[in-house]
C-alpha cells in the first residue's frame, strides 16, 4: 500500500476526533485528498488559497536567497572597512561566495525555521481547539517575517513575537481572512515596541556587530537611512542601493529582486498593481515635497531633518523597506482596500505617510511598517466612502433621467 493510501486510511480512522484537523493539514499539504465535491455545479478555478500563497512564496525566494548572501557579504565588508582594507567588488568574486552563504545559512535559516515552526504550531493549536481545518494563511506570513527583521534578532524574541502576532493579530479576529492588521507587520511592530534596542540603531543590521561593541574588532552596521538621519556621508553607490548590496533587514535590501517579484505577482494577478504603483507615487510625491522644502531653504543643514529631507526623491524609493512593503505587505488582499479607486488612495497614503514618518523620526528612520498598519485600519473606511460615492453618483444619474 502506498503512503498516500495509508494516509487516506488513517484519515478515515481519525475522522471526528480532536486531532483530525491537525492531521488533515499535513495530509492535504502533501497530497490532494480523495474527496470530491458532492452535488451541484461549482465554479472551477485553479487559484485557491494554497496556490495563491505558493505564488507569493515563490516570488519571495529570490529575496530570501539574496538576503542570505547579503548577510555574509555585509559581515565581511564591515570587517574589511573596519580594518581599512579596500577591495574590488565583483558580484561573483565577493558576493556569491560560499563564505557569505554560510553566514546566511547559520543566521537566516534559523529565523525562517523558528518563524514557521512557532507560527504553524499556534495555527495547529487553534485549529484543534476550534475544530476547523488548518488554514494556509501562515505560509506567506512565515516567509515574510524572517525577511523583515534585523539579522541578529534573538530567536526567542522572534518566537514570542510570532505567538503574539498570530494570536492577537489574526486568531482573535477569527483566523485567516478575517484579520484587520497584516500579521507579519503586527509581528514586526511588536518586536519594534517590545525590544527597541534589537530593532533599531546602528549595530543590529550587520551580523556580529552587536557582539563586537567595545572590542578592538568593532564594526559598524549603520543603514543608509541611519546615515542620512545623522547627516553623515553615505558610502554606497546608486547601483548598490538599487541592487541591494547594503545593510538592512534580511530580505528587503534588493529593490531589483523585489521588483522582479512584483512583476511575477502582477503577471499572475496575485498582487494588485494599483497598490504597488500608487505606493511608489505617494512616496515620490512626499519625497518631492521635502526636496522642495529644502530647495526653498526653509530647512537648512543645521536641522536634524536635513539629511533625510535632502535625499533625492527617487532615492527614497530604493532605500529602506519601502519597496518591500509596497510589493509584499501593502498588497495583502485581506487587509488592503478592495475597491479599485480605494486601492489607489490606500497605496498613495501608505507611500506618503511612510516617507513622512521616515523623515520626522530620526531616532528610527523607517516608517513603512507603521504606515501600512495605519492604512490597514483605514482600508475599510476608504472602501466604504468609495462605495457610497458610487451609489450616490448613480442615484443622481437616475434622478436626472426620470426628471
Amino acid at each position, binding site marked *: 500500500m502506498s503512503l498516500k493510501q495509508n494516509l487516506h486510511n488513517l484519515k478515515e480512522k481519525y475522522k471526528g476526533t480532536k486531532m483530525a484537523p491537525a492531521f488533515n493539514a499535513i495530509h492535504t499539504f502533501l497530497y490532494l485528498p480523495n474527496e470530491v465535491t458532492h452535488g451541484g455545479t461549482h465554479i472551477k478555478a485553479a487559484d485557491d488559497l494554497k496556490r495563491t500563497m505558493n505564488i507569493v512564496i515563490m516570488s519571495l525566494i529570490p529575496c530570501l536567497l539574496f538576503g542570505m548572501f547579503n548577510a555574509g557579504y555585509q559581515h565581511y565588508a564591515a570587517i574589511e572597512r573596519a580594518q581599512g582594507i579596500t577591495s574590488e567588488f565583483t558580484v561573483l568574486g565577493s558576493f556569491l561566495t560560499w563564505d557569505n552563504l554560510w553566514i546566511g545559512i547559520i543566521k537566516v535559516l534559523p529565523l525562517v525555521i523558528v518563524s514557521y515552526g512557532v507560527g504553524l504550531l499556534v495555527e495547529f493549536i487553534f485549529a484543534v481547539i476550534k475544530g476547523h481545518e488548518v488554514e494556509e494563511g501562515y505560509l506567506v506570513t512565515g516567509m515574510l517575517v524572517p525577511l523583515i527583521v534585523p539579522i541578529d534578532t534573538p530567536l526567542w524574541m522572534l518566537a514570542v513575537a510570532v505567538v503574539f502576532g498570530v494570536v492577537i493579530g489574526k486568531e*482573535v479576529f477569527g483566523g485567516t481572512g478575517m484579520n484587520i492588521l497584516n500579521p507579519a507587520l503586527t509581528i514586526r511592530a511588536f518586536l519594534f515596541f517590545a*525590544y527597541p534596542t*534589537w530593532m533599531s540603531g546602528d549595530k543590529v543590521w550587520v551580523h556580529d556587530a552587536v557582539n563586537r561593541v567595545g572590542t578592538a574588532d568593532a564594526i559598524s552596521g549603520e543603514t543608509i537611512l541611519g546615515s542620512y538621519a545623522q547627516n553623515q556621508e553615505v558610502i554606497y553607490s546608486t547601483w548598490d542601493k538599487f541592487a541591494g548590496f547594503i545593510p538592512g533587514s534580511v530580505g528587503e535590501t534588493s529593490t531589483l529582486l523585489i521588483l522582479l517579484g512584483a512583476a511575477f505577482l502582477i503577471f499572475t494577478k496575485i498582487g494588485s498593481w494599483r497598490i504597488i504603483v500608487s505606493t511608489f507615487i505617494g512616496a515620490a510625491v512626499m519625497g518631492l515635497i521635502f526636496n522642495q522644502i529644502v530647495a526653498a531653504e526653509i530647512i537648512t543643514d543645521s536641522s536634524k531633518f536635513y539629511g533625510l529631507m535632502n535625499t533625492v526623491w527617487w532615492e527614497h524609493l530604493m532605500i529602506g523597506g519601502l519597496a518591500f512593503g509596497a510589493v509584499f505587505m501593502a498588497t495583502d488582499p485581506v487587509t488592503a482596500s478592495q475597491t479599485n479607486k480605494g486601492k489607489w488612495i490606500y497605496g498613495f497614503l501608505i507611500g506618503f505617510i511612510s516617507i513622512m514618518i521616515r523623515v520626522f523620526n530620526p531616532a528610527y528612520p523607517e516608517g513603512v511598517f507603521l504606515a501600512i498598519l495605519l492604512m490597514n485600519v483605514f482600508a475599510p473606511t476608504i472602501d466604504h466612502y468609495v462605495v457610497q460615492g458610487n451609489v450616490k453618483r448613480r442615484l443622481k444619474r437616475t434622478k436626472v433621467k426620470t426628471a
Partner: protein
Amino acid sequence: MGLLSKKDAVLLTDPLADNNPITIQVLGICSALAITAELKASIVMAISVMFVLGLGNVVISLMRNIIPSKIRIIVQLIVVATLVIIVDLVLKAFAYELSKTLSVFVGLIITNCIIMGRFEAFALGNGPWRSFLDGIGNAVGYGVILIIVGFFRELLGSGTLLGFKVLGDPIEKTGLYAIGYENNGFMLLSPMALIVVGIIIWIQRSKNKSLIEEN
C-alpha cells in the same frame, strides 16, 4: 459567610466575576490602562477606589431620600470629590513618591465611570448596608483586574514585582538576564494594557459561555 444573607453575599461576589465592572461592563478602562505599568500603583489605586466607592455609596444611600432628583448628579459629584480629595491628601502626606506616579489619576477617580455608575444604579435605590457591600464588591472586582494587569505588566515589562528584581538584574546580567532574556518594553506602553485586559475578557468568556452576547 455567616454574617451576610445570601442576597447580600451576591452583592459582593457578583462583581468579582460574572458582572465585573472592567471585563463585563467595560467601565473604568482609562485608569486601568494608565496606571497599571507598576503593581504598586495598581494596588494603591484599587484601595483608593475601594475607599471612595464604599464610603461614597453609603453617603449617597443615606441621603437618597432627601436629594432632589434634578440635582442628584451635582450632589454625587460633591460626594466623590470630597472623598477623592481626602485620598489625594493622604497619599501626598504618607506616600509622596507614589502620589507623584499616580499624579492626575487620583484626581480622575472622580470621573471613574464605575463610581457614578454605582451611585446611580445602586446607592440611590438601596439601604446603606447593601450599598456599602455593593461598593466594596465592585471596587474589589475593579481592583482584581487592575492587580492582574499590573502584575503581568510589571513582571514582563520591568522584570520586577513591587520594585523587587524577581527576574535578576538587567544591567549586571544575573538571573534570567544571564541567558539572554530581555524586558519587553511594549508591556510598559498603554496599548499593551488594553491587550492584556482583552485577553482576560477572552479567557473569562470562553470559560463562561453565558456571557457571550448573541448577535
